[in-house]
């Protein structure tokens, strides 16, 4: 059985990164920088290689048998409760494993160049390897508790890496914030797991889902709804959804490759993975599905609108990530798990690309991140420009790039299974996405250079080990979409064993449209392309056309020119009607809702605990008699309770 011997290698996938961590963490200080990077990249590379072996092993099996569990050791046994620590290979987990190790490898390579000058070189790679290990554990674990352990461990790594440049106060604050906000979500998650533990007497995926799909729980049962809602609370924390998203924009304080790997491609998608993994449970609770879809849609629109007005290149991408994650949740919420996972995959490609591209820009500009101080860079850093362009086109949803197919599928599914509101929200968010991404592209690479003089002198294209990952990712972003092209269903067929247990999950556009007349996939493609093009067009108008106008021309043929120039003022009307209000709303969302209400309440809770803490401590007066007094008060309370008894 060659496939089984291949599948048995799965533990090695986990082993290599942790070995890398151990070596770099223990002796990295004394090693040369090259050695450190060889160890780090090598371990992830080996892990990726093993993952491909396991993947091919899985492909050799017939589709319905593609579930392989490797027990490691028996973990918790307490009476009727049992849990064994083990790894699970199925289409969903291996897909994510490939992404984590593959993109992880590229980002490790990229980091060699990016972090070259940093004094915490070995520490950085140690953390990065540890992150890879934890993320793999999260994905490959065969039960909820292992997932939770990975879940917490990636949070820890994210915390360490956001605060990597701890000399900056903002960095260590952002790290702390990320960790604590995540803990709020995790506590819902942990509660959900406990409820699973108590309801199903096991935390093993296979057993839980098997029990749930046996019809013991009616659709909409209270327990399942509670479980799924609690799990979703965890997802909102990790995947930065309303209201727990505030940490993600701040997380951009970390090194850019970290943002690419953790805060775009892998860790933040853990919530989507979790919901996809628990699709059986989620399908049993329509209420939760509605909540997931609504929060996803709201986040998609909300974050996209904030993205419209940001000037920090990484923050635009951060809000964009939040928004794209919203899409994935929308997809899951309407039952289109395949579409959600598909978007997860393509998003991993193009968002990693965009982040790395932005990192390359920042690298070229010696750390400048404000787009108002960029512009005209396309000739100076051509490789970065080209790859960034591909990434932008991909996220904007222009065929045939990756983002187009996945986003299109989500739009379609949200109309088919959801309703018009979901669809229109998603469509508007998609318009925004196209707009702000091209705005970013134009401001950065086109137009006149606004780069400061002394920075200009050092302007240079990034070294090979940074551009090669960019090119590879650009390639993936270009062709990645064909995995899910309507009609071929590579993705949905591959994933179907995972989602088949949960009722209506033959989730693919073409088949659905047979049963439902509403969504014609090809019409849909045209519509979504049109939306994306509109967004690009507006961006083009606002950021390329107007600033470039020579003033003299305008003065000579004042009237005619102006009318012509302004295309009979259609643009102005357009601007007045749509762009300005949108802009105002966006600013309002950002300044009031985001910064004051949501961020403010998170900080406010922390502050009020601090306030209570600093006041309650004064009860500790240091006087023995006060302490005795407390004891007597407690005693009277207890006696009163006793007197009331029976």
């Amino acid at each position, binding site marked *: 059985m060659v496939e089984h011997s291949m599948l048995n290698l799965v533990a090695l996938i986990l082993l290599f990164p942790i070995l890398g961590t151990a070596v770099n963490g223990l002796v990295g200080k004394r090693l040369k920088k090259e050695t450190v990077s060889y160890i780090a990249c090598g371990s992830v590379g080996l892990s990726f290689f093993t993952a491909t072996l396991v993947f091919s092993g899985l492909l050799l099996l017939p589709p319905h048998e593609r579930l392989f569990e490797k027990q490691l050791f028996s973990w918790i046994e307490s009476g009727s409760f049992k849990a064994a620590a083990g790894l699970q290979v199925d289409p969903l987990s291996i897909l994510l494993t490939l992404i984590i190790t593959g993109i992880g490898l590229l980002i490790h390579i990229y980091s060699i160049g990016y972090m070259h000058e940093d004094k915490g070189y070995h520490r950085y790679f140690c953390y990065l390897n540890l992150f890879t290990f934890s993320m793999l554990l999260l994905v490959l674990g065969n039960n909820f508790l292992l997932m939770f352990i990975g879940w917490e461990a990636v949070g820890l790594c994210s915390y360490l890496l956001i605060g990597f440049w701890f000399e900056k106060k903002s960095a260590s604050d952002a790290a702390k914030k990320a960790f604590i906000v995540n803990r709020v979500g995790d506590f819902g998650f942990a509660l959900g797991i406990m409820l699973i533990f108590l309801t199903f007497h096991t935390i093993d995926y296979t057993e839980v889902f098997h029990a749930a799909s046996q019809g013991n729980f009616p659709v909409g049962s209270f327990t399942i709804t509670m479980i799924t809602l609690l799990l979703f609370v965890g997802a909102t924390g990790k995947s930065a959804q309303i209201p727990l998203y505030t940490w993600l924009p701040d997380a951009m304080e970390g090194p850019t490759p970290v943002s690419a790997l953790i805060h775009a491609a892998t860790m933040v998608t853990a919530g989507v993975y979790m919901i996809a993994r628990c699709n059986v449970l989620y399908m049993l609770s329509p209420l939760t599905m509605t909540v997931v879809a609504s929060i996803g849609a709201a986040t998609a629109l909300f974050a996209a609108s904030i993205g419209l007005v940001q000037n920090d290149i990484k923050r635009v991408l951060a809000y964009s990530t939040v928004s794209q994650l919203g899409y994935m949740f929308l997809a899951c919420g309407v039952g289109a798990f395949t579409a959600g996972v598909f978007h997860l995959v393509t998003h991993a490609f193009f968002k990693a690309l965009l982040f790395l591209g932005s990192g390359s820009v920042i690298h070229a500009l010696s750390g400048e991140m404000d787009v108002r101080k960029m512009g005209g860079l396309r000739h100076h850093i051509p490789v970065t420009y080209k790859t960034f362009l591909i990434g932008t086109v991909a996220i904007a949803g222009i065929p045939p790039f990756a983002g187009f197919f996945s986003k299109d599928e989500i739009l379609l599914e949200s109309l088919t299974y959801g309703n018009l509101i979901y669809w229109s929200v998603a469509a508007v968010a998609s318009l925004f996405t196209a707009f702000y991404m091209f705005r970013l592209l134009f401001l950065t690479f086109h137009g006149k250079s606004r780069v400061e003089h002394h920075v200009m002198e050092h302007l240079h294209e990034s070294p090979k080990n940074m551009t090669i990952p960019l090119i590879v990712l650009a390639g993936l972003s270009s062709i990645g979409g064909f995995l899910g092209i309507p009609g071929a269903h590579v993705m949905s067929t591959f994933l179907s064993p995972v989602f088949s247990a949960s009722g209506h999950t033959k989730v693919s556009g073409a088949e659905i449209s047979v049963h439902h007349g509403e969504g014609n996939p090809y019409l849909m493609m045209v519509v979504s392309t049109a939306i994306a093009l509109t967004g690009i067009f507006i961006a083009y108008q606002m950021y390329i056309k107007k600033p470039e106008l020579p003033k003299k021309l305008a003065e000579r043929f004042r009237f005619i020119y102006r009318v012509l120039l302004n295309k009979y003022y259609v643009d102005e009307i357009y601007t007045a009607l749509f762009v300005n209000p949108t802009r105002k709303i966006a600013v309002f969302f950002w300044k009031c809702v985001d910064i004051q209400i949501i961020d403010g309440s998170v900080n406010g809770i922390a502050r009020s605990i601090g306030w209570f803490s600093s006041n309650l401590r004064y009860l500790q007066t240091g006087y023995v*008699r006060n302490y005795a007094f407390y004891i007597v008060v407690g005693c009277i309370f207890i006696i009163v309770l006793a007197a009331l008894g029976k």
Partner: protein
Amino acid sequence: MEAYLFYIMAAVAVVSAVYLIFEKNPVYSILYLVMILISIAVLYLLLGAQFIAAVQIIVYAGAIMVLFLFVVMLLNLSAKEELKDALSFQKIPAIVMGIVLLSAIGIILRSKIPLGKQGEYTSAYVHDVGNTQLIGKLLFTKYLLPFEITSILLFIAAIGAIILAKRK
């Protein structure tokens, strides 16, 4: 007769206790405590616990209280107590608390106290065998283990007192 003795001794004990907690001079406080101990010893006699009554007088009132007195004298505290009162505001609430505590216990005790399982040591039986003999017998049979452990306890107290009070 028994009732009169009870009420007299109870009155003595309560009044002494009130004096104990309001008396300024610690030496007097000790004497009030000794009064309480003696009146309680009398109550023990009423309850047929001669051995405990004797121990109360000899060990408690005789030895332990003398130790207290000794320390008070040693530190020459008789005159200079009550210098600073940082918590004078606590006095009223404390007394209120005391009343509340007492009334709360009182509410619970309001009905007749339900006594537990009756044992075999009736007064007549104890009288026949002798209180001290019975206690001795129980100490070396049923309660041998705690009895032996108390030796460790007293040992701890001895070395503890030495190590804490020793000058450098």
